[in-house]
């Protein structure tokens, strides 16, 4: 049985905004987790001298002695502290923070959710997850600008199923010592200057991101919650216009997946599970560097031909 990420708030604007975002995400969890949002002035906080990790304007402190994860967005827009093992996040955001809806959702609250769902066995990787026409799972790992969203949209239009173009979670697979990926459903988002290249019509203008987005279904393919990867790709946009692939060793694949899943370092009681899921993922998959060229638009079956 799968559960969702449950929202509790008395603020109607937060309920509408965050509730819609979580409903769209359709995140399938093995056990429930709760997100409680208060809107108002931030509570006072003691200075935190522990190791710092930053994600945009979100500052994350973690480590001993408390082993809590403390997050502040801003400065002064939002704050939460997650205790080890606690499946409930109490978040406070200011009215000013609530007005910055895109950054509130896709930066601050996404980070909160990433730490929350770790507590029920889902570990975030910055990557796209797809299913090819031969029912083989693919994970495309890369930072913003690596071409994974454009590739995901292109492949979705060519019969591939999609879980996400950006927000993936490692979780224990159905078979022992295997890893599945769970996708956070949201619009597959292309920069406006790439929309014409993919030949897409319609879509939703994501004006604050200067992107246009489509749910997988709007591109004529299926959205899939869960995929077992057999291939890992590390895309980069090439300069030559020609797409190419070259194999990556298991050790290098693991370290690169780890760089896109840096949370493994932050909570000691969850690090072993997270690391073993990444190891299983690499063991069950073949990994490739993928240099993306414009020829992929005319020949999207290149990836399948290369691995066959």
């Amino acid at each position: 049985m799968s559960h969702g990420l449950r929202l509790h708030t008395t603020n109607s604007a937060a309920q509408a905004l965050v509730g819609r975002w979580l409903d769209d995400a359709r995140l399938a969890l093995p056990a429930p987790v709760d997100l409680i949002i208060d809107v108002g002035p931030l509570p006072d906080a003691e200075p935190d001298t522990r190791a710092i990790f930053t994600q945009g304007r979100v500052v994350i402190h973690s480590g001993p002695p408390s082993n809590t994860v403390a997050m502040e967005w801003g400065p002064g827009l939002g704050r939460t502290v997650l205790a080890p093992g606690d499946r409930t996040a109490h978040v406070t955001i200011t009215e000013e923070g609530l007005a910055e809806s895109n950054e509130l959702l896709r930066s601050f609250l996404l980070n909160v959710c990433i730490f929350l769902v770790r507590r029920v066995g889902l570990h975030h990787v910055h990557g796209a997850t797809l299913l090819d026409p031969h029912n083989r799972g693919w994970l495309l790992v890369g930072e913003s600008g690596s071409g994974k969203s454009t590739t995901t949209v292109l492949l979705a239009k060519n019969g591939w199923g999609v879980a996400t173009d950006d927000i993936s979670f490692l979780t224990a697979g159905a078979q022992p010592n295997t890893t599945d990926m769970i996708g956070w459903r949201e619009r597959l988002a292309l920069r406006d200057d790439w929309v014409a290249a993919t030949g897409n019509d319609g879509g939703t203008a994501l004006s604050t991101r200067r992107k246009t987005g489509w749910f997988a279904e709007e591109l004529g393919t299926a959205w899939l919650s869960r995929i077992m990867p057999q291939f890992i790709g590390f895309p980069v946009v090439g300069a030559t216009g020609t797409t190419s692939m070259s194999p990556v060793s298991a050790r290098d694949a693991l370290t690169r997946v780890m760089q896109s899943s840096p949370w493994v370092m932050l909570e000691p009681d969850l690090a072993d599970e997270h690391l073993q899921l990444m190891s299983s993922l690499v063991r069950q998959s073949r990994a490739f560097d993928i240099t993306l060229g414009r020829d992929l638009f005319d020949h999207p079956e290149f990836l399948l031909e290369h691995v066959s």
Partner: protein
Amino acid sequence: MSTVYKRHDDLRLTAVDDEGVVLHLGSLRYFTVNETGLTILQELLEPRTLEELVKAVTDAYDVTPELAQETTRAFVERCVDAKLLHTEER
């Protein structure tokens, strides 16, 4: 009294294709180790003396005791410098 090597509490280790990836949670750093390094770190699931580690290496590989001693000593000293291991007297 003898010196034993122990894994640091912040160390996490995994193996893929006979190589290892080691995390140090305290410093937010990671390291990769070759097959011999992986063998030594796996042996250190329990505290071990240098001699016990050298024996693990000579048992696993076709290598002279002298070379195993030199390789193992160099490896554990680098790990101590990186705070992946520490020593205790027992």
